């Protein structure tokens, strides 16, 4: 099934040689685990001897494979990191430095290997008469970082799945069927605990197969050139499709067998667990079947691209030897051309903004084509006159309320009462004018304030003074002293009259 793991014989001759090569490949799969333990961990800045990194690596692969075979289909790097951190913490909870995230990152990064394949060199054995031998590099990945529906995702390769299953060079579908047969035999022999263990292995195999297929379909959906749909995949799919029905039927038979065996009270608990295990495996197969049905458009797209489309030369290009090295030595024109072409593919299309800063400045600061001349301002003869800034209505100003104070001293409260009964249109405004005029007469003497602008009002208040005798104004709208407004002469006469009256009262007494 797995091209890199399971295709045999290309590197060696003879069955013995092929078998060794296959087992050598399986042996190499654990090399990254020991890379963590022997090379990366001692330099990682934590006490690596306290952590079982090999176990963490295996559990990382387990976690990714199980997620890959589940409904979710993939797991994000952050989630994988969290899972491994938790495991590292449980492994050494008393580590005071708390380097669990660092431990998890080390394991995950080593397995991902920055997206580069792990490499192992296989040395061919030379023939007796040959003077040199050949060697070949085998490249494989365990975990891969890919673009998933919900962002970056970590997926397991077939090599990782083989590691997960602890399987050697075995076809996964055949292995699943063989395990189910074994379950049946063990149940018929009454070895229910062993049957349960075998059923669990069968479920794990089903999960591995599902993950492997899902990975291939996802890869094809992502890039139709990534999986060989001309040779390997159609044959593999045909085989899996043929087996799916058999697997589901076999699961049904196993459940019936377990139910019958479960009637025996001694075997009932084990049988219940076997039924649950078989059901789990059955769900995996059913999901796989649905996924295969959904993959028809992917298959067609791949067919179109790979079988009918022109084959690209990209596969034959070595970017270091064919692009980077010549570019480093290229003249300026060739270099610029190469970078331009690279940008055309590697960068998104340039979308011009509606307005950029340069364009905006050009428009705003450009010299006007037609000089704008402001409309001439023509003087209106009527506007030449001064406008009364107080804008006091004529009828308000004409009211002779304040003027009455020139004849006899009058209290402000009396003037306000007269204003309210004067009958002008805006009584409130008249009261304000009276109140303001009384205050003005009170403060104007020493300050020399300007007179009101209206000539009639200025004439009315000229010569008036106000005296505060301590009486408080009893008004809602106005507060302060209830001043007496009058001419200075009137006040003098009033004082003389008051003194005379005082003198006559004293004489009579």
């Amino acid at each position, binding site marked *: 099934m797995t091209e890199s793991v399971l295709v045999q014989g290309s590197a060696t001759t003879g069955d013995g040689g092929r078998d060794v090569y296959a087992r050598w490949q399986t042996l190499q799969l654990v090399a990254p685990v020991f890379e963590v333990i022997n090379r990366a961990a001692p330099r990682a800045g934590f006490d690596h001897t306290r952590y079982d990194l090999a176990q963490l690596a295996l559990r990382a692969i387990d976690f990714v494979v199980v997620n890959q075979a589940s409904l979710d289909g993939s797991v994000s790097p952050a989630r994988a990191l969290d899972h491994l951190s938790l495991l590292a913490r449980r492994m050494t909870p008393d580590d005071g430095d708390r380097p669990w995230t660092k431990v998890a990152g080390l394991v995950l990064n080593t397995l*991902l290997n920055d997206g580069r394949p792990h490499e192992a060199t296989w040395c061919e054995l030379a023939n007796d008469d040959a003077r040199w031998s050949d060697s070949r590099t085998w490249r494989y990945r365990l975990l891969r970082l890919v*673009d998933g529906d919900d962002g970056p995702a970590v997926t397991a390769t077939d090599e990782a799945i083989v590691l997960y299953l602890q399987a050697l060079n075995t076809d996964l579908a055949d292995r699943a069927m063989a395990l189910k047969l074994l379950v049946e035999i063990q149940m018929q022999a009454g070895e229910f605990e062993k049957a349960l263990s075998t059923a669990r292995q069968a479920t794990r195999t089903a999960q591995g197969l599902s993950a492997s297929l899902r990975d291939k379909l996802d890869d094809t959906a992502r890039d*139709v050139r990534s999986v060989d749909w001309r040779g390997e995949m159609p044959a593999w799919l045909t085989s899996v499709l043929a087996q799916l029905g058999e697997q589901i039927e076999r699961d049904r038979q196993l459940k019936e067998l377990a139910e019958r065996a479960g009637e025996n009270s001694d075997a009932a608990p084990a049988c219940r667990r076997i039924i649950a295990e078989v059901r789990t495996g059955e769900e995996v197969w059913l999901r796989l079947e649905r996924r295969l049905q959904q993959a028809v458009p992917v298959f067609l797209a791949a067919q179109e691209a790979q079988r009918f489309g022109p084959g690209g030369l990209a596969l034959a*290009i070595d970017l270091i030897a064919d692009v980077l090295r010549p570019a480093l030595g290229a003249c300026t024109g*060739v*270099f*610029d051309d190469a970078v331009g072409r690279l940008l055309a593919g590697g960068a*998104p299309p340039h979308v011009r903004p509606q307005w950029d800063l340069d364009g905006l400045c050009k428009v705003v600061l450009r010299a006007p084509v037609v000089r704008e001349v402001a409309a001439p301002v023509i003087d209106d003869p009527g506007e030449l006159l001064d406008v009364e800034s107080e804008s006091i209505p004529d009828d308000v100003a004409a009211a002779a309320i304040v003027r009455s104070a020139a004849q006899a001293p009058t209290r402000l409260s009396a003037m306000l009462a007269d204003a309210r009964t004067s009958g002008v249109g805006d009584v409130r405004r008249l009261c304000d004018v009276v109140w303001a005029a009384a205050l003005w007469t009170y403060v104007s003497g020493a300050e020399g304030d300007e007179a009101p602008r209206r000539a009639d009002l200025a004439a009315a208040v000229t010569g008036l003074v106000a005296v505060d005798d301590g009486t408080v104004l009893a008004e809602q709208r106005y507060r302060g002293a209830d001043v007496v407004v009058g001419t200075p002469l009137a006040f003098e006469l009033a004082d003389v009259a008051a003194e005379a009256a005082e003198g006559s009262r004293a004489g009579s007494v």
Partner: protein
Amino acid sequence: MNLTDAGGAAQLLRYALDPGERPRPDSDYRRLLERFRLDTGFAELTRHIAEGLGLYLGAVTPLGLLVSGDVDGPFAVTLDNSGLPLRSGASRLQDRRCFGLVLVAVAAYAYPTGADLVATTNPTVRPEALLRFINTHVDTLVEACDGADDELDAQVGEAARMWRDLPAVLPAERGGLKRDCQRSYVNRTLEYLADQGRARRDAALADERGEAYALNDRFRSGLSEVCETVAFGVLAADGDHGPHPRSGY
């Protein structure tokens, strides 16, 4: 096909032109993308509209429909309008050469062979490792010239010479790096790719070796579309200058 279909096709192109847009489940983009994959008529209509606009439609990836601008069209992307932080004035030439060199190096570092461009694995690029990779290749090229100035000029491109003259790092007074150093160009190029939706800074993969940027399918797929022409261009020019008198270069 009717006017509604044309509107849908144009909307799909609008989504594809936005690097930040992704076909999330139950989104309009996902619906249109599925239709593009399954409905030949709709796909043809979209292609016609794209051609008219000067856009080239690439692969459908989980990150969306890949589009690139025709060289002669309004969407053509060049070093000057790409969004790379090029300075004006005397430093502009150096920026153009060095950013260009780092871009070529990112491609070669992340996808050394054509097979890597087809594999759907997203490679991780760490600034420090990329810088080491570039310097190794530039130094190898320079060492092959045996120190002869005339041969250095003839065999080493201007970009590589400019790169070699730069310090590896140049700390700024207030922290960080000044712009005129190799590490700054590497950092800014990777940040640019992340800004353009071609890479992602992945905190989960960062470790003592530094930050990690995971390149995505958009970059890989776009690169695989053009790598043939890029390789042909530089190799043809290389051939015109005759074989290099050294192995490997």
